[in-house]
């Protein structure tokens, strides 16, 4: 049983519009049997934070193409993308590079 973890989420480049315009979120992910990974985080965000138009943020079980993900200021492509296991105090950033956010 993994303990709950506190992480810091940030949205930019217009992606924040889908979250009531709020860029920074300090959230606590509840304890669950296996460790949290990014794939589960996306599901959690969709259920708990996303205010509207989920198709503008997620597509399938990943983020919509054109939205960049940084984990602790590094490209998530270097961190295992969806399979990265989140640690307490991690910093996850989503930046939209799409025109108009």
């Amino acid at each position, binding site marked *: 049983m993994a303990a709950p973890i506190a992480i810091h989420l940030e949205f*930019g*480049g*217009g992606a*924040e*519009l*889908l979250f009531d315009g709020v860029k920074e979120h300090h959230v606590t992910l509840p304890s669950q049997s296996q460790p949290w990974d990014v794939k589960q985080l996306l599901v959690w965000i969709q259920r708990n934070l996303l205010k509207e*138009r989920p198709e*503008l943020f997620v597509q399938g079980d990943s983020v919509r*193409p*054109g939205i*960049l993900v*940084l984990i602790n*200021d*590094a*490209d998530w*492509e*270097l*961190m*295992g*993308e969806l399979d990265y296991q989140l640690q307490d105090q991690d910093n996850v*950033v989503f*930046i939209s*590079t*799409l*025109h*108009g*956010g």
Partner: protein
Amino acid sequence: MCQVDEDYHGPLQRAEVPSVSKKCVKCKEATAAVVIRAGDAYCRGCFKEYFIHKFRAMLGKNRVIFPGEKVLLAVSGGPSSCSMLRQVQEGLSHNAHKKLRFLPGVVFIDEGGAVGQSVEERQRTVAELHAVFKATSFPFHMVPLEQVLDLPSSVVVTAASPSERAASAYKAAVDHFIQSDTTSCVTPRQQEETLLPDVQESHTHSLQQLIGSAKTLTAKEELLNTLRQHLLVHTARTEGYSKVMLGDNCTRLAVKLLSSISLGRGAQLAQDTGFSDSRYGDIMLLRPMTEYSAKEIAYYNRMFRVPAVFTASLDTRTADKSSIQHLTESFVIKLQADFPSTVSTIYRTSEKLQTACRSSSTEECWDRCLLCVCALDTAAENASAFKATLISEQLSQSKSPKATRPNPESTAPAGQCCSPAGGGDCGKAASDGGCCSSAKAPETAHLRSLLCYSCQLTIKDMGSNQSSVEHLPQYILSEAQRRRRRSQMRQEIRDFLLDEADEG
């Protein structure tokens, strides 16, 4: 083109997931932080060096900016143009490796009125950008898009370009510049404190009517791009700049390239997407960010704290299919996610494009589109698709029963009149009702004859009745009248002209 080959590791290579905690490919020491192009992982330091170098290499390679020349940076607040602003700052800094030697200024066009922002929202954006610009100590200009309504007609006329300066002149100018100014390359003029001038509500209303008169988002976006460009060129002229730098990055240009083709702007592609664009003659438009992908820019801005100010645009939070431009973007970006060389491959294609020179020796103003100021592409041969479209348009019109033909003043919804004639002929996108438009007042028909094929489509979209065209800014309408008078005059005196162009 030092980067052409790297992007080709077989056209269908799929994205690979690199192993965790990779080392930087450049210094092979530091831990990589960003993956650029297919699989190249860079550390922070090497990425910064690579990014800064690329900007100077771009300008160095093209050699179009003369030392001491005044260059206007068009900054929208978006990541690309803000990154461009930072690159110019870097290039002018005292410890820069190869210093840039031009005199920059900044312009921000506030489009809030056109996209329906409240006065408060607009003020907030302007205040934020004001702080960003002030920190650069470059002179800057905050211009509301509403000012486009007061432009002079000369904006849409190609001005005589300054006499062609030979390549040798560049070297001489550099030497002269180094001798005359060795201490500081940029001595910014007295700070121009131009906060956004007051915008009259009636002006904002007129602008909204103008944008609103286009029915589709596709045409609205095209119209907005055109108006913005006119205002940029006008600002450069009145403030004494000879070059305007635009922030278009590689990703945007790849999208622009494909959407331009869909919009019928094939003939203008080279100018619309190339590094330098001299359609306006005296003012050259430059795109120095064309070597960067949107991803590289987003990472650079994040890592090195480049401030950007997000402003909503017409396509914010719209569905993929809301406009041709938006749909093209989503297509390219989705493809890019699986095939990382998509954007660069599309963009490299555009670099090879050239428009064949028209046979006419001198391109007079009536050879240029009234809106986009590109050479007209409508003098096509008889067998062209364009002529076929025209013929089909005329046919569908003549078949149309007279009973349903509206009178020119009618404000009945367009499209009604051509439906009984079988929409098949005129069922093209964005042409609803377009087939009737030439039956309208000759004014409108004449206006269309002054436009390139693509701009004709945009105007068509504004509806077939006369009143919608009247929403166009006065400078466009009066230039249309001037060209009309001129061509009438040419008709009248043509028998007396010795030097008539081949067909007239």
